[in-house]
Protein backbone atom coordinates (compact mmCIF):
# COMPACT_ATOMS: atom_id res chain seq x y z
CA UNK A 1 0.00 0.00 0.00
CA UNK A 2 2.71 2.42 1.03
CA UNK A 3 4.66 1.51 -2.07
CA UNK A 4 1.64 2.18 -4.20
CA UNK A 5 1.20 5.59 -2.60
CA UNK A 6 4.84 6.36 -3.15
CA UNK A 7 4.46 5.44 -6.78
CA UNK A 8 1.39 7.60 -7.12
CA UNK A 9 3.21 10.46 -5.52
CA UNK A 10 6.15 10.06 -7.84
CA UNK A 11 3.84 10.10 -10.82
CA UNK A 12 2.09 13.18 -9.47
CA UNK A 13 5.37 14.98 -8.88
CA UNK A 14 6.91 13.76 -12.10
CA UNK A 15 6.14 16.54 -14.55
CA UNK A 16 7.02 19.21 -12.01
CA UNK A 17 10.46 17.76 -11.46
CA UNK A 18 11.49 17.13 -15.04
CA UNK A 19 10.74 20.38 -16.75
CA UNK A 20 13.77 20.10 -18.98
CA UNK A 21 12.82 19.14 -22.52
CA UNK A 22 13.00 15.44 -23.15
CA UNK A 23 12.25 13.83 -26.46
CA UNK A 24 13.80 16.56 -28.57
CA UNK A 25 14.72 14.94 -31.81
CA UNK A 26 18.41 14.30 -32.19
CA UNK A 27 19.86 13.31 -35.52
CA UNK A 28 21.10 9.77 -35.36
CA UNK A 29 20.20 6.28 -36.38
CA UNK A 30 16.95 5.80 -34.49
CA UNK A 31 15.31 9.18 -34.24
CA UNK A 32 12.04 9.47 -32.41
CA UNK A 33 9.50 12.22 -32.89
CA UNK A 34 6.90 12.85 -30.20
CA UNK A 35 3.59 13.97 -31.69
CA UNK A 36 0.60 14.76 -29.47
CA UNK A 37 -2.64 16.71 -29.45
CA UNK A 38 -5.92 17.12 -31.29
CA UNK A 39 -8.25 14.15 -31.28
CA UNK A 40 -9.62 15.43 -34.57
CA UNK A 41 -6.22 15.00 -36.15
CA UNK A 42 -5.19 11.86 -34.32
CA UNK A 43 -6.31 9.36 -36.98
CA UNK A 44 -4.61 11.35 -39.74
CA UNK A 45 -1.50 11.70 -37.60
CA UNK A 46 -1.44 7.94 -37.00
CA UNK A 47 -1.85 7.25 -40.72
CA UNK A 48 0.95 9.70 -41.49
CA UNK A 49 3.23 8.08 -38.93
CA UNK A 50 2.49 4.64 -40.29
CA UNK A 51 3.05 5.59 -43.93
CA UNK A 52 6.22 7.49 -43.02
CA UNK A 53 7.68 4.23 -41.70
CA UNK A 54 8.02 3.15 -45.35
CA UNK A 55 9.66 6.40 -46.36
CA UNK A 56 12.05 6.78 -43.47
CA UNK A 57 12.28 3.56 -41.42
CA UNK A 58 14.86 5.08 -39.09
CA UNK A 59 12.38 7.66 -37.78
CA UNK A 60 9.94 6.59 -35.09
CA UNK A 61 6.88 8.82 -34.79
CA UNK A 62 4.92 8.34 -31.56
CA UNK A 63 1.39 9.71 -31.84
CA UNK A 64 -0.99 10.40 -28.94
CA UNK A 65 -4.33 12.22 -28.80
CA UNK A 66 -5.85 14.00 -25.83
CA UNK A 67 -7.06 17.24 -27.40
CA UNK A 68 -5.49 20.35 -28.89
CA UNK A 69 -5.05 21.94 -25.47
CA UNK A 70 -3.22 18.83 -24.25
CA UNK A 71 -0.88 18.88 -27.22
CA UNK A 72 -0.08 22.56 -26.89
CA UNK A 73 0.39 22.19 -23.11
CA UNK A 74 2.90 19.42 -23.81
CA UNK A 75 4.69 21.61 -26.33
CA UNK A 76 4.85 24.35 -23.70
CA UNK A 77 6.25 21.89 -21.16
CA UNK A 78 8.77 20.74 -23.74
CA UNK A 79 7.69 17.09 -23.78
CA UNK A 80 6.70 16.85 -27.45
CA UNK A 81 8.30 17.85 -30.76
CA UNK A 82 5.08 18.42 -32.65
CA UNK A 83 1.69 19.42 -31.24
CA UNK A 84 -1.42 18.77 -33.33
CA UNK A 85 -4.17 21.33 -32.94
CA UNK A 86 -7.57 21.86 -34.45
CA UNK A 87 -7.46 25.52 -33.38
CA UNK A 88 -4.84 28.22 -33.39
CA UNK A 89 -2.64 28.68 -30.35
CA UNK A 90 -3.99 31.20 -27.83
CA UNK A 91 -2.06 34.32 -26.91
CA UNK A 92 -1.62 33.19 -23.31
CA UNK A 93 -0.37 29.78 -24.42
CA UNK A 94 2.18 31.45 -26.68
CA UNK A 95 3.27 33.64 -23.77
CA UNK A 96 3.67 30.60 -21.50
CA UNK A 97 5.71 28.82 -24.15
CA UNK A 98 7.97 31.81 -24.59
CA UNK A 99 8.40 32.03 -20.82
CA UNK A 100 9.67 28.42 -21.03
CA UNK A 101 12.03 29.39 -23.84
CA UNK A 102 9.97 27.72 -26.57
CA UNK A 103 8.86 29.50 -29.72
CA UNK A 104 5.76 27.76 -31.15
CA UNK A 105 5.76 27.82 -34.97
CA UNK A 106 2.49 27.20 -36.78
CA UNK A 107 2.05 24.94 -39.84
CA UNK A 108 -1.32 24.44 -41.55
CA UNK A 109 -1.45 20.76 -42.50
CA UNK A 110 -5.04 20.14 -43.62
CA UNK A 111 -8.50 21.62 -43.87
CA UNK A 112 -11.61 20.45 -42.09
CA UNK A 113 -15.32 21.13 -41.96
CA UNK A 114 -17.35 20.90 -38.78
CA UNK A 115 -20.40 18.83 -39.61
CA UNK A 116 -23.64 19.25 -37.67
CA UNK A 117 -25.05 15.80 -36.99
CA UNK A 118 -28.45 14.57 -35.80
CA UNK A 119 -30.34 11.28 -35.52
CA UNK A 120 -31.27 9.82 -38.95
CA UNK A 121 -34.97 10.05 -38.10
CA UNK A 122 -34.79 13.82 -37.52
CA UNK A 123 -36.84 15.58 -40.27
CA UNK A 124 -34.82 18.82 -40.09
CA UNK A 125 -32.68 19.27 -43.24
CA UNK A 126 -30.66 22.36 -42.50
CA UNK A 127 -30.03 25.12 -39.96
CA UNK A 128 -28.69 28.64 -40.21
CA UNK A 129 -25.73 29.85 -38.17
CA UNK A 130 -27.99 32.15 -36.07
CA UNK A 131 -30.27 29.18 -35.39
CA UNK A 132 -27.29 27.02 -34.39
CA UNK A 133 -26.09 29.79 -32.10
CA UNK A 134 -29.51 30.02 -30.44
CA UNK A 135 -29.70 26.23 -30.09
CA UNK A 136 -26.25 25.78 -28.55
CA UNK A 137 -26.58 28.75 -26.22
CA UNK A 138 -29.83 27.31 -24.89
CA UNK A 139 -32.26 29.88 -26.31
CA UNK A 140 -34.04 27.36 -28.51
CA UNK A 141 -34.73 24.15 -26.61
CA UNK A 142 -37.28 22.38 -28.78
CA UNK A 143 -36.93 20.98 -32.29
CA UNK A 144 -40.39 22.40 -33.06
CA UNK A 145 -38.90 25.91 -33.16
CA UNK A 146 -36.56 25.07 -36.03
CA UNK A 147 -39.03 23.09 -38.11
CA UNK A 148 -38.71 19.70 -36.45
CA UNK A 149 -40.90 17.51 -34.27
CA UNK A 150 -42.06 18.50 -30.80
CA UNK A 151 -39.03 17.10 -28.99
CA UNK A 152 -36.55 18.56 -26.50
CA UNK A 153 -33.12 19.31 -27.98
CA UNK A 154 -30.20 17.51 -26.35
CA UNK A 155 -26.94 19.37 -27.00
CA UNK A 156 -23.75 17.39 -27.46
CA UNK A 157 -20.29 18.87 -27.49
CA UNK A 158 -16.72 17.76 -27.07
CA UNK A 159 -15.01 18.62 -23.78
CA UNK A 160 -13.87 22.22 -23.47
CA UNK A 161 -10.19 21.25 -23.95
CA UNK A 162 -11.04 20.22 -27.50
CA UNK A 163 -10.00 22.59 -30.28
CA UNK A 164 -13.24 21.76 -32.05
CA UNK A 165 -15.14 23.00 -28.98
CA UNK A 166 -13.30 26.33 -28.94
CA UNK A 167 -13.65 26.79 -32.70
CA UNK A 168 -17.37 26.04 -32.54
CA UNK A 169 -17.82 28.49 -29.67
CA UNK A 170 -16.08 31.28 -31.57
CA UNK A 171 -17.45 30.69 -35.07
CA UNK A 172 -20.94 29.37 -34.39
CA UNK A 173 -22.16 30.14 -30.87
CA UNK A 174 -20.65 33.64 -31.02
CA UNK A 175 -21.04 33.85 -34.79
CA UNK A 176 -17.49 35.08 -35.25
CA UNK A 177 -18.00 38.15 -33.04
CA UNK A 178 -15.03 38.45 -30.67
CA UNK A 179 -16.81 40.75 -28.23
CA UNK A 180 -19.76 38.42 -27.93
CA UNK A 181 -19.75 36.80 -24.49
CA UNK A 182 -22.29 34.08 -25.29
CA UNK A 183 -21.45 30.69 -23.81
CA UNK A 184 -22.59 27.16 -24.45
CA UNK A 185 -25.77 26.36 -22.53
CA UNK A 186 -24.93 24.79 -19.14
CA UNK A 187 -27.15 21.90 -20.21
CA UNK A 188 -24.71 20.97 -22.96
CA UNK A 189 -23.47 17.42 -22.55
CA UNK A 190 -19.68 17.43 -22.71
CA UNK A 191 -18.55 14.11 -24.13
CA UNK A 192 -15.01 12.91 -23.46
CA UNK A 193 -14.64 11.53 -26.99
CA UNK A 194 -15.87 11.79 -30.57
CA UNK A 195 -17.19 8.27 -30.15
CA UNK A 196 -19.31 9.44 -27.21
CA UNK A 197 -20.96 11.98 -29.51
CA UNK A 198 -21.57 9.54 -32.36
CA UNK A 199 -22.97 6.91 -29.99
CA UNK A 200 -25.50 9.36 -28.57
CA UNK A 201 -26.40 10.85 -31.97
CA UNK A 202 -26.95 7.39 -33.44
CA UNK A 203 -29.22 6.45 -30.60
CA UNK A 204 -31.09 9.54 -29.47
CA UNK A 205 -33.64 11.28 -31.76
CA UNK A 206 -33.40 14.42 -29.58
CA UNK A 207 -29.68 14.89 -29.99
CA UNK A 208 -27.68 17.40 -32.00
CA UNK A 209 -23.92 17.36 -32.08
CA UNK A 210 -20.97 18.56 -34.12
CA UNK A 211 -17.69 16.97 -35.09
CA UNK A 212 -14.95 17.03 -37.68
CA UNK A 213 -16.01 15.79 -41.12
CA UNK A 214 -13.65 12.84 -40.85
CA UNK A 215 -15.57 11.53 -37.84
CA UNK A 216 -19.04 11.49 -39.34
CA UNK A 217 -20.29 7.96 -39.95
CA UNK A 218 -23.09 6.80 -42.24
CA UNK A 219 -25.54 6.19 -39.44
CA UNK A 220 -25.68 9.89 -38.52
CA UNK A 221 -27.57 12.50 -40.47
CA UNK A 222 -25.52 15.52 -41.55
CA UNK A 223 -27.38 18.84 -41.72
CA UNK A 224 -26.84 21.56 -44.31
CA UNK A 225 -25.69 24.88 -42.86
CA UNK A 226 -26.58 28.34 -44.16
CA UNK A 227 -24.40 31.31 -43.17
CA UNK A 228 -27.50 33.48 -42.65
CA UNK A 229 -31.27 33.46 -43.02
CA UNK A 230 -32.45 33.33 -46.67
CA UNK A 231 -29.20 31.84 -47.88
CA UNK A 232 -28.98 28.31 -49.25
CA UNK A 233 -28.03 25.38 -47.03
CA UNK A 234 -24.61 23.99 -47.90
CA UNK A 235 -23.56 20.42 -47.14
CA UNK A 236 -20.03 19.89 -45.81
CA UNK A 237 -17.89 18.22 -48.50
CA UNK A 238 -14.31 18.50 -49.69
CA UNK A 239 -15.50 20.79 -52.53
CA UNK A 240 -17.62 23.15 -50.42
CA UNK A 241 -14.75 23.55 -47.96
CA UNK A 242 -12.23 24.25 -50.74
CA UNK A 243 -14.44 26.82 -52.49
CA UNK A 244 -15.28 28.42 -49.15
CA UNK A 245 -19.07 28.04 -49.41
CA UNK A 246 -19.43 25.85 -46.29
CA UNK A 247 -19.54 28.29 -43.38
CA UNK A 248 -17.94 26.22 -40.60
CA UNK A 249 -14.57 25.27 -42.06
CA UNK A 250 -11.18 25.60 -40.46
CA UNK A 251 -7.53 24.75 -40.79
CA UNK A 252 -5.84 21.99 -38.86
CA UNK A 253 -2.42 22.79 -37.47
CA UNK A 254 0.82 21.33 -36.31
CA UNK A 255 2.94 23.42 -33.96
CA UNK A 256 6.63 22.82 -33.60
CA UNK A 257 8.98 24.14 -30.93
CA UNK A 258 10.94 26.66 -32.98
CA UNK A 259 11.54 26.32 -36.73
CA UNK A 260 11.54 22.58 -37.46
CA UNK A 261 15.00 21.01 -37.69
CA UNK A 262 16.34 17.73 -38.96
CA UNK A 263 13.96 14.78 -38.84
CA UNK A 264 11.01 16.92 -37.78
CA UNK A 265 11.48 19.25 -40.78
CA UNK A 266 11.69 16.31 -43.17
CA UNK A 267 8.60 14.72 -41.70
CA UNK A 268 6.66 17.98 -41.93
CA UNK A 269 7.68 18.46 -45.56
CA UNK A 270 6.51 14.97 -46.35
CA UNK A 271 3.16 15.68 -44.62
CA UNK A 272 2.67 18.82 -46.71
CA UNK A 273 3.71 16.98 -49.88
CA UNK A 274 1.48 14.88 -52.17
CA UNK A 275 1.80 11.65 -50.16
CA UNK A 276 0.85 13.23 -46.86
CA UNK A 277 -2.03 15.16 -48.38
CA UNK A 278 -3.38 12.03 -50.11
CA UNK A 279 -3.79 10.51 -46.65
CA UNK A 280 -5.67 13.63 -45.53
CA UNK A 281 -8.22 13.14 -48.32
CA UNK A 282 -8.45 9.41 -47.69
CA UNK A 283 -9.49 9.97 -44.07
CA UNK A 284 -12.28 12.37 -44.93
CA UNK A 285 -10.48 15.66 -44.35
CA UNK A 286 -9.69 18.36 -46.84
CA UNK A 287 -6.23 18.45 -48.44
CA UNK A 288 -4.46 21.78 -48.85
CA UNK A 289 -4.03 21.82 -52.63
Amino acid at each position, binding site marked *: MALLLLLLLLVACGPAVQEEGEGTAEPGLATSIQNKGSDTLVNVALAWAEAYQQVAPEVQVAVTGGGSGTGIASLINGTVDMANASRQIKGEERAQAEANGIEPVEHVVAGDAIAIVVHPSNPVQGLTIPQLSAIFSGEITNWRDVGGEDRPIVLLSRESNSGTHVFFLEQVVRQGDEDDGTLFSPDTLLMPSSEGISA*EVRDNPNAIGYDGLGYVTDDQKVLGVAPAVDEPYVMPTVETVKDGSYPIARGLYIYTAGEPQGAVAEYLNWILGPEGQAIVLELGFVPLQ
Partner: protein
Amino acid sequence: MKQSRGGRREALITVLIRAAGFSAIFFVALIFLFLLKEGAPAFWEVSLGNLFGQRWYPNEDLFGTMPLILGSLLVTAGSVVIALPLGLATAVFIRELAPNWLREILKPLIEVLAGIPSVVLGFLGMVAVAPLMREALDIPTGLTAFTGSLMLAYMALPTIISVAEDAIDAVPKGYRDGALAMGATHWQTIWRVILPAARSGVIIAVMLGIGRAIGETMAVMMVTGNAARIPREWYALFLPARTMTATIAAEMGEVAQGSTHYHVLFAVGILLFVVTFIINAIASAVVVKGGPRRGGRLMG
Protein backbone atom coordinates in the same frame (compact mmCIF):
# COMPACT_ATOMS: atom_id res chain seq x y z
CA MET B 1 22.00 -16.19 24.18
CA LYS B 2 19.36 -17.71 22.03
CA GLN B 3 16.70 -15.86 23.86
CA SER B 4 18.37 -12.47 23.43
CA ARG B 5 18.74 -13.07 19.72
CA GLY B 6 15.04 -13.91 19.55
CA GLY B 7 14.35 -10.74 21.52
CA ARG B 8 16.41 -8.67 19.14
CA ARG B 9 14.69 -10.18 16.15
CA GLU B 10 11.37 -9.44 17.72
CA ALA B 11 12.37 -5.86 18.37
CA LEU B 12 13.48 -5.51 14.75
CA ILE B 13 10.17 -6.87 13.49
CA THR B 14 8.30 -4.50 15.78
CA VAL B 15 10.26 -1.57 14.40
CA LEU B 16 9.59 -2.65 10.81
CA ILE B 17 5.88 -3.06 11.41
CA ARG B 18 5.74 0.30 13.14
CA ALA B 19 7.57 1.91 10.22
CA ALA B 20 5.15 0.36 7.75
CA GLY B 21 2.22 1.63 9.79
CA PHE B 22 3.59 5.13 10.04
CA SER B 23 4.61 5.23 6.40
CA ALA B 24 0.98 4.90 5.34
CA ILE B 25 0.10 7.95 7.43
CA PHE B 26 3.21 9.73 6.22
CA PHE B 27 2.30 9.25 2.58
CA VAL B 28 -1.30 10.30 3.09
CA ALA B 29 0.02 13.44 4.75
CA LEU B 30 2.42 14.01 1.84
CA ILE B 31 -0.39 13.62 -0.67
CA PHE B 32 -2.53 16.07 1.24
CA LEU B 33 0.33 18.55 1.44
CA PHE B 34 0.92 18.21 -2.29
CA LEU B 35 -2.78 18.76 -2.95
CA LEU B 36 -2.74 21.80 -0.69
CA LYS B 37 0.39 23.23 -2.29
CA GLU B 38 -1.01 22.93 -5.81
CA GLY B 39 -4.59 23.83 -4.95
CA ALA B 40 -4.25 26.63 -2.41
CA PRO B 41 -3.22 29.32 -4.94
CA ALA B 42 -6.67 28.93 -6.51
CA PHE B 43 -8.19 30.52 -3.43
CA TRP B 44 -6.41 33.80 -4.00
CA GLU B 45 -6.12 33.69 -7.78
CA VAL B 46 -9.87 33.30 -8.15
CA SER B 47 -12.39 35.30 -6.15
CA LEU B 48 -14.52 33.23 -3.78
CA GLY B 49 -17.65 34.46 -5.55
CA ASN B 50 -16.34 32.98 -8.78
CA LEU B 51 -15.00 29.81 -7.14
CA PHE B 52 -18.35 28.99 -5.56
CA GLY B 53 -20.36 30.43 -8.43
CA GLN B 54 -22.89 28.64 -10.54
CA ARG B 55 -21.05 28.44 -13.84
CA TRP B 56 -18.13 26.14 -14.62
CA TYR B 57 -16.50 27.15 -17.88
CA PRO B 58 -12.72 27.30 -17.40
CA ASN B 59 -12.07 28.55 -20.97
CA GLU B 60 -13.61 31.87 -19.94
CA ASP B 61 -12.18 31.84 -16.40
CA LEU B 62 -15.54 30.86 -14.92
CA PHE B 63 -14.60 28.49 -12.12
CA GLY B 64 -17.91 28.01 -10.30
CA THR B 65 -17.57 24.68 -8.50
CA MET B 66 -21.17 24.63 -7.21
CA PRO B 67 -22.52 22.56 -10.14
CA LEU B 68 -19.68 20.07 -9.66
CA ILE B 69 -20.17 19.70 -5.90
CA LEU B 70 -23.94 19.36 -6.26
CA GLY B 71 -23.47 17.00 -9.20
CA SER B 72 -21.21 14.74 -7.14
CA LEU B 73 -23.59 14.81 -4.17
CA LEU B 74 -26.60 14.09 -6.38
CA VAL B 75 -25.02 11.12 -8.12
CA THR B 76 -23.65 9.75 -4.84
CA ALA B 77 -26.91 10.18 -2.91
CA GLY B 78 -28.78 8.48 -5.74
CA SER B 79 -26.41 5.54 -5.69
CA VAL B 80 -26.68 5.10 -1.91
CA VAL B 81 -30.48 5.20 -2.05
CA ILE B 82 -30.38 2.43 -4.65
CA ALA B 83 -27.55 0.37 -3.21
CA LEU B 84 -28.43 0.45 0.50
CA PRO B 85 -31.76 -1.43 0.46
CA LEU B 86 -30.47 -3.84 -2.16
CA GLY B 87 -27.22 -4.44 -0.30
CA LEU B 88 -28.90 -4.84 3.08
CA ALA B 89 -31.51 -7.20 1.71
CA THR B 90 -28.81 -9.29 0.04
CA ALA B 91 -26.76 -9.38 3.24
CA VAL B 92 -29.80 -10.43 5.29
CA PHE B 93 -30.66 -13.06 2.73
CA ILE B 94 -27.16 -14.51 2.66
CA ARG B 95 -26.78 -14.53 6.45
CA GLU B 96 -30.26 -15.36 7.69
CA LEU B 97 -32.29 -17.01 4.99
CA ALA B 98 -30.17 -18.66 2.33
CA PRO B 99 -29.42 -22.37 2.71
CA ASN B 100 -25.74 -23.18 3.14
CA TRP B 101 -25.10 -24.36 -0.40
CA LEU B 102 -26.60 -21.21 -1.91
CA ARG B 103 -24.56 -19.03 0.42
CA GLU B 104 -21.41 -20.78 -0.76
CA ILE B 105 -22.31 -19.88 -4.35
CA LEU B 106 -23.49 -16.32 -3.73
CA LYS B 107 -20.54 -15.11 -1.68
CA PRO B 108 -17.81 -15.69 -4.28
CA LEU B 109 -20.11 -14.38 -7.03
CA ILE B 110 -20.52 -11.11 -5.17
CA GLU B 111 -16.77 -10.87 -4.81
CA VAL B 112 -16.41 -11.32 -8.57
CA LEU B 113 -18.81 -8.42 -8.99
CA ALA B 114 -16.35 -6.20 -7.10
CA GLY B 115 -13.65 -7.05 -9.61
CA ILE B 116 -15.37 -5.66 -12.70
CA PRO B 117 -13.31 -2.69 -13.93
CA SER B 118 -15.26 0.55 -13.78
CA VAL B 119 -14.49 1.44 -17.39
CA VAL B 120 -16.25 -1.74 -18.48
CA LEU B 121 -19.28 -0.77 -16.42
CA GLY B 122 -19.13 2.71 -17.89
CA PHE B 123 -19.09 1.36 -21.41
CA LEU B 124 -22.00 -0.93 -20.61
CA GLY B 125 -23.84 2.04 -19.14
CA MET B 126 -23.16 4.20 -22.17
CA VAL B 127 -24.26 1.77 -24.86
CA ALA B 128 -26.87 -0.31 -23.04
CA VAL B 129 -28.27 1.31 -19.90
CA ALA B 130 -28.48 4.93 -21.10
CA PRO B 131 -30.62 4.20 -24.21
CA LEU B 132 -32.82 1.94 -22.07
CA MET B 133 -33.28 4.70 -19.47
CA ARG B 134 -34.20 7.25 -22.11
CA GLU B 135 -36.92 5.05 -23.55
CA ALA B 136 -38.21 3.61 -20.30
CA LEU B 137 -38.46 6.95 -18.50
CA ASP B 138 -39.18 9.07 -21.58
CA ILE B 139 -36.47 11.62 -20.74
CA PRO B 140 -34.54 13.75 -23.26
CA THR B 141 -31.31 11.78 -22.88
CA GLY B 142 -30.26 8.63 -21.06
CA LEU B 143 -26.94 10.17 -20.02
CA THR B 144 -28.15 11.36 -16.62
CA ALA B 145 -27.14 11.55 -12.98
CA PHE B 146 -29.48 8.62 -12.37
CA THR B 147 -27.66 6.41 -14.88
CA GLY B 148 -24.46 7.31 -13.05
CA SER B 149 -26.12 6.45 -9.73
CA LEU B 150 -27.14 3.05 -11.07
CA MET B 151 -23.59 2.27 -12.19
CA LEU B 152 -22.17 3.45 -8.87
CA ALA B 153 -24.77 1.50 -6.91
CA TYR B 154 -23.67 -1.59 -8.76
CA MET B 155 -20.07 -0.82 -7.88
CA ALA B 156 -20.80 -0.07 -4.23
CA LEU B 157 -22.97 -3.16 -3.73
CA PRO B 158 -20.20 -5.70 -3.09
CA THR B 159 -18.68 -3.47 -0.39
CA ILE B 160 -22.02 -2.80 1.27
CA ILE B 161 -23.05 -6.46 1.14
CA SER B 162 -19.87 -7.90 2.60
CA VAL B 163 -19.54 -5.32 5.38
CA ALA B 164 -23.23 -5.51 6.31
CA GLU B 165 -23.00 -9.27 6.24
CA ASP B 166 -20.08 -9.24 8.66
CA ALA B 167 -22.05 -6.92 10.95
CA ILE B 168 -25.08 -9.21 10.92
CA ASP B 169 -22.87 -12.20 11.50
CA ALA B 170 -21.40 -10.51 14.57
CA VAL B 171 -24.77 -10.17 16.31
CA PRO B 172 -24.57 -12.55 19.29
CA LYS B 173 -26.55 -15.74 18.82
CA GLY B 174 -28.28 -15.08 22.14
CA TYR B 175 -30.17 -12.11 20.64
CA ARG B 176 -31.59 -14.27 17.91
CA ASP B 177 -32.46 -17.12 20.24
CA GLY B 178 -33.97 -14.73 22.75
CA ALA B 179 -36.20 -13.08 20.17
CA LEU B 180 -37.38 -16.38 18.75
CA ALA B 181 -37.96 -17.77 22.23
CA MET B 182 -40.21 -14.82 23.02
CA GLY B 183 -42.39 -15.75 20.08
CA ALA B 184 -41.11 -13.27 17.50
CA THR B 185 -41.39 -14.41 13.90
CA HIS B 186 -38.30 -14.81 11.75
CA TRP B 187 -39.03 -11.49 10.02
CA GLN B 188 -39.61 -9.67 13.33
CA THR B 189 -36.33 -11.04 14.62
CA ILE B 190 -34.46 -9.77 11.57
CA TRP B 191 -36.12 -6.37 11.41
CA ARG B 192 -36.48 -5.55 15.10
CA VAL B 193 -33.54 -7.29 16.70
CA ILE B 194 -30.76 -8.25 14.31
CA LEU B 195 -30.65 -5.19 12.08
CA PRO B 196 -30.79 -2.68 14.97
CA ALA B 197 -28.08 -4.64 16.75
CA ALA B 198 -25.91 -4.57 13.64
CA ARG B 199 -26.62 -0.88 13.12
CA SER B 200 -23.13 0.53 13.48
CA GLY B 201 -21.73 -2.04 11.08
CA VAL B 202 -24.46 -1.19 8.62
CA ILE B 203 -23.65 2.51 8.88
CA ILE B 204 -20.03 1.71 8.17
CA ALA B 205 -21.15 -0.27 5.13
CA VAL B 206 -23.01 2.79 3.88
CA MET B 207 -20.03 5.01 4.60
CA LEU B 208 -17.69 2.80 2.63
CA GLY B 209 -20.27 2.66 -0.13
CA ILE B 210 -20.41 6.46 -0.25
CA GLY B 211 -16.63 6.60 -0.25
CA ARG B 212 -16.54 4.24 -3.21
CA ALA B 213 -19.23 6.19 -5.03
CA ILE B 214 -18.03 9.76 -4.58
CA GLY B 215 -14.48 8.96 -5.66
CA GLU B 216 -15.40 6.91 -8.72
CA THR B 217 -14.49 8.60 -11.96
CA MET B 218 -14.42 6.63 -15.16
CA ALA B 219 -17.88 5.08 -15.21
CA VAL B 220 -19.42 8.35 -14.05
CA MET B 221 -17.65 10.35 -16.72
CA MET B 222 -18.99 8.01 -19.40
CA VAL B 223 -22.65 7.95 -18.40
CA THR B 224 -23.63 11.19 -16.66
CA GLY B 225 -23.38 13.49 -19.70
CA ASN B 226 -20.97 15.87 -17.90
CA ALA B 227 -23.17 18.94 -18.21
CA ALA B 228 -22.12 21.36 -15.46
CA ARG B 229 -25.62 22.41 -14.49
CA ILE B 230 -27.08 23.27 -11.10
CA PRO B 231 -29.67 20.64 -10.14
CA ARG B 232 -32.66 22.89 -9.38
CA GLU B 233 -35.61 20.80 -10.51
CA TRP B 234 -37.08 18.00 -8.43
CA TYR B 235 -36.38 15.69 -11.36
CA ALA B 236 -32.75 16.84 -11.66
CA LEU B 237 -31.64 13.29 -10.92
CA PHE B 238 -32.99 12.41 -14.35
CA LEU B 239 -31.03 15.15 -16.10
CA PRO B 240 -27.31 15.24 -16.92
CA ALA B 241 -24.80 16.19 -14.22
CA ARG B 242 -21.07 16.75 -13.96
CA THR B 243 -19.14 15.40 -10.99
CA MET B 244 -15.96 16.71 -9.39
CA THR B 245 -14.02 13.56 -10.26
CA ALA B 246 -15.07 13.55 -13.91
CA THR B 247 -14.11 17.22 -14.19
CA ILE B 248 -10.64 16.61 -12.82
CA ALA B 249 -10.15 13.58 -15.05
CA ALA B 250 -11.43 15.28 -18.19
CA GLU B 251 -9.55 18.52 -17.78
CA MET B 252 -6.32 17.74 -15.92
CA GLY B 253 -4.59 16.38 -19.03
CA GLU B 254 -5.13 19.62 -20.85
CA VAL B 255 -4.14 22.40 -18.47
CA ALA B 256 -0.85 24.20 -18.64
CA GLN B 257 1.05 23.61 -15.42
CA GLY B 258 0.85 26.43 -12.94
CA SER B 259 -2.09 28.10 -14.68
CA THR B 260 -5.13 29.22 -12.72
CA HIS B 261 -7.19 26.40 -14.21
CA TYR B 262 -4.54 23.92 -12.99
CA HIS B 263 -4.70 25.28 -9.45
CA VAL B 264 -8.50 25.29 -9.50
CA LEU B 265 -8.58 21.62 -10.52
CA PHE B 266 -6.42 20.83 -7.49
CA ALA B 267 -8.75 22.99 -5.41
CA VAL B 268 -11.61 20.82 -6.65
CA GLY B 269 -9.53 17.88 -5.41
CA ILE B 270 -9.29 19.56 -2.00
CA LEU B 271 -13.05 20.15 -2.00
CA LEU B 272 -13.60 16.49 -2.82
CA PHE B 273 -11.32 15.59 0.08
CA VAL B 274 -13.25 17.94 2.40
CA VAL B 275 -16.67 16.69 1.29
CA THR B 276 -15.58 13.07 1.80
CA PHE B 277 -14.14 14.00 5.19
CA ILE B 278 -17.39 15.70 6.26
CA ILE B 279 -19.45 12.68 5.20
CA ASN B 280 -17.11 10.35 7.10
CA ALA B 281 -17.18 12.61 10.16
CA ILE B 282 -20.99 12.66 10.17
CA ALA B 283 -21.10 8.91 9.79
CA SER B 284 -18.68 8.26 12.64
CA ALA B 285 -20.54 10.77 14.81
CA VAL B 286 -23.70 8.78 14.17
CA VAL B 287 -21.94 5.56 15.06
CA VAL B 288 -20.56 6.99 18.30
CA LYS B 289 -23.86 8.63 19.22
CA GLY B 290 -25.57 5.32 18.72
CA GLY B 291 -24.41 4.49 22.26
CA PRO B 292 -22.69 1.30 23.30
CA ARG B 293 -22.20 -0.94 20.35
CA ARG B 294 -24.60 -3.81 20.33
CA GLY B 295 -22.99 -6.51 18.34
CA GLY B 296 -22.13 -4.62 15.18
CA ARG B 297 -18.48 -5.21 14.50
CA LEU B 298 -16.31 -2.37 13.33
CA MET B 299 -14.04 -2.75 10.37
CA GLY B 300 -10.64 -4.32 10.77
